[in-house]
């Protein structure tokens, strides 16, 4: 039953092998709604086990780019490949099984407000008609992972903003995703709650090696993930030795309608790009 906490059962059996192709490959993608393009000609990849942090000012299209990755938004030019399948022109019905293999945490949690926390977290399992006893056990495991066991029977309306995000993380993790997409999971939260959430993201990255794309505009969160690792023995994030960073955590930056940076923390900090320099200042 320990599907959340035991690494061997945490979806690694179905996750891409380390030498497999990229989990996500976006090539020359441009997105527009009713107006000028949100962004143009964006290309990047997410390799197995890799965590990519997508930075950028508010309104630069970070959330749209995240939704592009699992087909919630379609590009008007370019291609998007998810788990090796080109989803650019894939019909919506064929996208659902692929999306079920990903976990997505929305900006405000996007919990179903008419359902209890238990039913929110177990949403996919309920659709798959998993027996109730197994659902209860797995929901409790997932909630214990995010430290919210006591919210089992509560409704989202009675949770704080931070608790809603943590429930959303539990919902994204319960189905053992092969890719995690986080949309500003710490946006608008106090520093203590933000640290708790970043710790959960670090835990998922370091314990389960699930590839992920994290959207944030908080440099502090990005740097913490790069310079810390999760220590299961202490059950918290600990700093990496001075001068070292997590090699599997890299940066992307959106600005002025284009992807203006793709590289490591070191390259990011030493970038000559004026937009990056201004963002860092």
């Amino acid at each position: 039953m320990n599907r959340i906490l035991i690494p061997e059962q945490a979806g690694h059996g179905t996750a891409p092998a380390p030498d497999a192709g990229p989990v996500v490959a976006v090539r020359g993608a441009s997105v527009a709604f009713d107006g000028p393009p949100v962004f143009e000609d964006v290309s990047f990849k997410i390799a197995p086990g890799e965590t990519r942090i997508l930075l950028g000012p508010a309104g630069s299209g970070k959330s749209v780019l995240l939704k592009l990755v699992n087909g919630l938004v379609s590009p008007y030019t370019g291609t998007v490949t998810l788990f090796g399948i080109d989803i650019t022109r894939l019909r919506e019905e064929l996208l659902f099984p692929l999306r079920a293999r990903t976990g997505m945490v929305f900006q405000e949690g996007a919990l179903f407000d008419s359902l209890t926390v238990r039913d929110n977290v177990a949403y996919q399992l309920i659709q798959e008609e998993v027996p109730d006893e197994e659902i209860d056990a797995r929901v409790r495991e997932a909630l214990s992972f995010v430290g919210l066991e006591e919210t089992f029977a509560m409704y989202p309306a009675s949770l704080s903003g931070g608790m809603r995000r943590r429930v959303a993380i539990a919902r994204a993790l319960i189905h053992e995703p092969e890719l995690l997409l986080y949309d500003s999971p710490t946006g608008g939260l106090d520093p203590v709650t933000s640290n708790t959430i970043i710790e959960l993201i670090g835990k998922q990255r370091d314990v389960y090696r699930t590839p992920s794309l994290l959207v944030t505009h908080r440099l502090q969160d990005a740097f913490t993930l790069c310079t810390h690792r999760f220590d299961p023995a202490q059950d918290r994030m600990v700093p990496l030795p001075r001068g070292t960073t997590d090699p599997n955590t890299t940066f992307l930056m959106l600005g002025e309608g284009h992807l203006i940076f793709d590289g490591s923390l070191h390259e990011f900090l030493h970038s000559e790009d004026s937009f990056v320099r201004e963002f860092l200042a």
Partner: protein
Amino acid sequence: MATTSIDRNAKQFVLTVQDYALFAFRAFRNLFTPPVYWTDFLLQSDIIGVGSLVIVVLSGFFTGCVLALQSAATLEAFGATSVTGRFVALSMIRELGPVLTGIMVSGRNASSMASELGSMVVTEQIDAMRALGVDPMRKLVTPRIFACISMLFFLTILANACGILGGAAVTVFLNHQNATQYFSMAWESLRLRDILQGLVKPLFFGYIIASIGCFNGMKTTGGTEGVGRSTIQAVVWSSVLIIFADYLISQVMLSLF
């Protein structure tokens, strides 16, 4: 400038009609391919059917009362008050029962569907559902459409019965006529074509109410203000389309029988 605006609005209208047609077709087709969410169908049947019971019973009853009052006054001039039962029964079953029930259910349910789904859209719950691998069309729209069709059918029958009873109450207690005469006139005047007309209409009206309500909800943009706008549009368009469809169905049924 004005021409450009008319051109843009006309294109927008055509695009909306096209989107609605595709939306309504997809929702209908989903019932015949798995997965079908029967639990949601039952839940929506309860919300739409049982939830609308009181307003349908009351509106049906008082419509029958008014019909009997008004018709008796006119029929008296011709010495034909004995046909009040026939007048009330035919008016209720052929026209007023289906149309009034449709409009009452539309006011209650098209608005609730548009506001519920609209709120889910603006709070990203619909996107979350899609991201979890569940088709919102199958999960939210198709059960509402079929629950509305089936429940409106039974609600209309109930409204017709209440209308005839309301007419009877006025005829017997206010106009002091014979109850047996009222009911026998009502019964003898009814033909299969009248009943068919009255039962076919709610099937179309139910489809209109739920598909318009869900369509407006799912196309909501612009935050909470957008939810309000979608709700208004859902009620206005479903009510107008019910009356328009009523005219078309009556025309077809009259030419068939």
